[in-house]
């Protein structure tokens, strides 16, 4: 299928949904407080964009996500590599990670305030808690799928364990790790909203929560859609990067 056809289908689906929304709102089947009209949502977004709120919110949230997510990834990838490569590490870390990752992130909110206060560090922490443990497991699973033959090759070349990890396991697992990052980045956005429930005065999540309190349904919808679009863009960008970075996999028969 050509790139154009793919895009065409995707756009058609989005257009159909937008149309359904337009019709539903116009027909008044749902109260505007729950389903505002597209026009009012767009108007509200335009207003927030004009007075700068939108950009501040977006800037702040992107910053928080970025730091929290990068911290989590920077720790999860090496740990996942170790846990996936050595049984000793797996025994020490994997059950613990399993144990922690089932604990509800929401329950950590009060604790996070206690540990790191109410500043941005607390937001990083919540995003970190929400993604790090899942990432470790996902990276571990990817690493375990590295063909044993590749590792055998490294061993016959007398590579040290460290080199086997950095020069064979890591590159071999890289496409899978990239997928993991792409997928967990999506959740980071959800945790952002949880994090911004506390002690935030700006940010996309904060604005949504406040708008919910104040019945500003058009703001809620506008921001939720904005999040969707941001996500879609990052996702497609990461996918495009993957086909570029991991060219060698796609050329295969």
């Amino acid at each position, binding site marked *: 299928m050509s790139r154009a056809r793919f895009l065409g289908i995707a756009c058609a689906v989005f257009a159909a949904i937008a149309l359904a929304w337009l019709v539903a709102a116009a027909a008044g089947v749902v109260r505007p407080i729950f389903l505002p009209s597209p026009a009012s949502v767009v108007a509200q977004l335009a207003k927030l964009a004009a007075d700068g709120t939108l950009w501040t919110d977006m800037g702040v949230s992107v910053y928080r996500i970025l730091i929290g997510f990068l911290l989590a990834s920077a720790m999860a990838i090496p740990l996942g590599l170790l846990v996936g490569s050595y049984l000793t590490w797996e025994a020490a870390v994997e059950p613990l990670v399993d144990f922690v990752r089932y604990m509800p992130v929401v329950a950590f909110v009060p604790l996070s305030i206690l540990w790191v206060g109410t500043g941005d560090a607390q937001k990083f922490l919540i995003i970190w808690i929400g993604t790090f443990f899942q990432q470790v497991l996902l990276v571990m699973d990817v690493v375990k799928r590295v063909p044993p033959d590749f590792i055998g090759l490294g061993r016959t*070349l*007398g590579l040290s364990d460290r080199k086997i990890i950095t020069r064979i396991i890591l590159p071999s697992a890289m496409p899978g790790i990239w997928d993991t990052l792409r997928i967990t980045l999506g959740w980071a956005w959800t945790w952002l909203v949880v994090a911004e429930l506390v002690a935030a005065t700006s940010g996309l999540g904060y604005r949504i929560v406040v708008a919910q309190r104040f019945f500003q349904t058009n703001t809620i919808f506008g921001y939720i859609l904005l999040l969707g679009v941001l996500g879609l863009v990052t996702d497609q960008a990461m996918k495009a990067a993957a086909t570029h970075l991991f060219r060698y996999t796609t050329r295969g028969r």
Partner: protein
Amino acid sequence: MTAPASASPASPPKLEIRHLNKSFGTGAQQIEILRDINLDLAANEFVSVVGTSGCGKSTLLSIVAGLETFDDPSGGRDYSPVRIDGAPVFDAGLDRGVVFQSYTLLPWLTAQQNVEFALQAAGMEAAERRRVAEEHIALVKLERFANAYPSELSGGMKQRVAIARALSYRPKMLLMDEPFGALDALTRQQMQELLMQVWEQHRLTVLFVTHDVEEAVYLSDRIVVMGIGPGRVRETFRVDLPRPRTSEIVETEEFLALQHKVLKAIREAAQRLPG
């Protein structure tokens, strides 16, 4: 009718295999694959292993390579049935170059980079690496494909890259599992000549698994015939043909006679009842 498997050569053996056993699985599911394998290779000796499909040749090679475990009834921690230069073998290492039956190329590296990867592991400098890799890529006639990824190569081409890689860093010992299996007659002959040349120049010791008896006779100093159920050394043949050997030798009386003897031995070993 059997020459001793561990016909001790004059010089101290490069590789010693003593009472090697191997089984897969545990409990009721356990299957014995190799039983009491004994084999010595002198330095610079070229030994081929032949035997019917499934008799355990690849397993034997993997154990010598240090990639597969062996059964250890003694339970001793530093006991190994495999010794190289007298030192027990527990793990793989740069001293043994390996060409697997299924050619293992790293898919994210080009042909050239796959060779360079091994050279880097052997501690060679960047410029030197490049030169040696190019040279070996040329030796296996893949100049035009130096920058192709494995997924862009045909089966035979991948195998040649693997051969180039194993030769490039000059391990003292080469373990090759049907390295020429996917090659056409012409390329195969070129590769055989290349191997012979490197072997003679660098005094390598080679343990070579093949299913082609002609090839085994042509290349080897000694041929080990393995039998099945479980895998055992059934017979050993010394190949006393003069070296250097040329392709004409294949049609000599002597050559054909030995080829037939080995074939017969394989057939007999394969037909023995299991157990």
